């Protein structure tokens, strides 16, 4: 359970970035700012990314063939870069999910929660 106002460590935020991004994109295509908002919302405001750092991660995931991007005109009339999950990304997400569940189960067992 989160302590209100608790700040996650930098390492934990960094380690969870990829599974979080892939999980958000599993629900459908999205763009940088919306991904950040969604993660903030999902974590109840506990996970706060440095906004600029998201983009190199997105670009890296794209180069790994996990996601793909395309530009399209948004409702506001501006060109916006959208990302969507690829088949390789789904596979990577499934693997990450398994790994995080193992960690979660181990911690839950040792802490008796």
């Amino acid at each position, binding site marked *: 359970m989160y302590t209100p106002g608790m700040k996650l460590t930098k390492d934990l935020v960094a380690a969870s970035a990829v599974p979080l991004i892939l999980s958000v994109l599993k629900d459908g295509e999205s*763009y*940088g*700012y*919306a991904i950040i908002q969604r993660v903030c919302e999902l974590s109840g405001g506990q996970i706060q990314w*440095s*906004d*600029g*750092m998201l*983009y*190199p991660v997105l*670009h*890296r995931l794209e*180069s*790994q*063939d996990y996601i793909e991007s395309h530009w399209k005109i948004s409702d*506001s009339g*501006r*060109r*916006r*870069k959208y990302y969507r999950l690829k088949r*390789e990304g789904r596979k990577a997400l499934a693997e990450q999910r398994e790994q995080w569940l193992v960690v979660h189960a181990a911690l839950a067992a040792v802490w008796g929660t």
Partner: protein
Amino acid sequence: MFDLEQQISQWRDATSKVMRGQAEAIEELENHLRDAVERSVRAGSTPEQAWESALQRLGTPEPLAAEFRKLAPSSPRSWVPAQVLMAVQGCFALGIAWLCFRVAGRRGDMLLAFHVFCVTVGYSAMFGVGAIVAWSVVSRTLRGWTDREHAALCTTMRWWTMGGLVLTMLGIVLGSVWSRGHWGRFWNWDVKELAAVGQLLWNGLVLAALARRPRDQRVVLLLGLAGNLVVAACWFGPAGLHSDGRAPPGLVVAIAVLMFVELGLVGLTLLPKAWLRRAG
């Protein structure tokens, strides 16, 4: 009076100075800033407060640029080693074309010229793969290796191997047609024919391995290094042997040097990760 467009323009200028050649990423970041400002203004902030807050959350351009610099281009078109390889391979292909068709013009045997051109350029493509992998191994050891560089290497290897496969296959077919016309048979079980088939099989193996996207980067590097030995054996083996089957001393020395260099590169590839420099 606060002018958002002017602020964005100044931010864009400052960011462009440290993120050269990354116009798309800058546009994406600018969009992010605009989204953040719009949202804050809707929530009740003044445009000035919204801009300051968005800027603070995005971070200053220098650390951002440093993060983007770690992402070397993954497309071979924008990866310098691939560009060099393309230029060298292009010059080699032009040189071989000139030589083949000059000789063919004198002898009046264009089919043979096409066959020699296809096989030679096809084989050399695999040496190109070996060369770029050798460069990658050294680069990875001395200055570190990023995921994007590895992705660029894999894409380059895939294209070159595919090109080598198509040209070698075409060369075999043309050679068979030529053989039918001159020796009466399409296939003679000649050592050069068998070597070409061996080369084809190797190209297929490399493509199959790359399609599986090996997780360990070393698998790709070792595959590329092994390709040097395969193409050397398939190309210079049959072409270099004397008619009595003995290898001339020059060929033995060349193969010994190649083996020595390859062993060194394999050693570098297998170094523990902790011994390698980290990229960025």
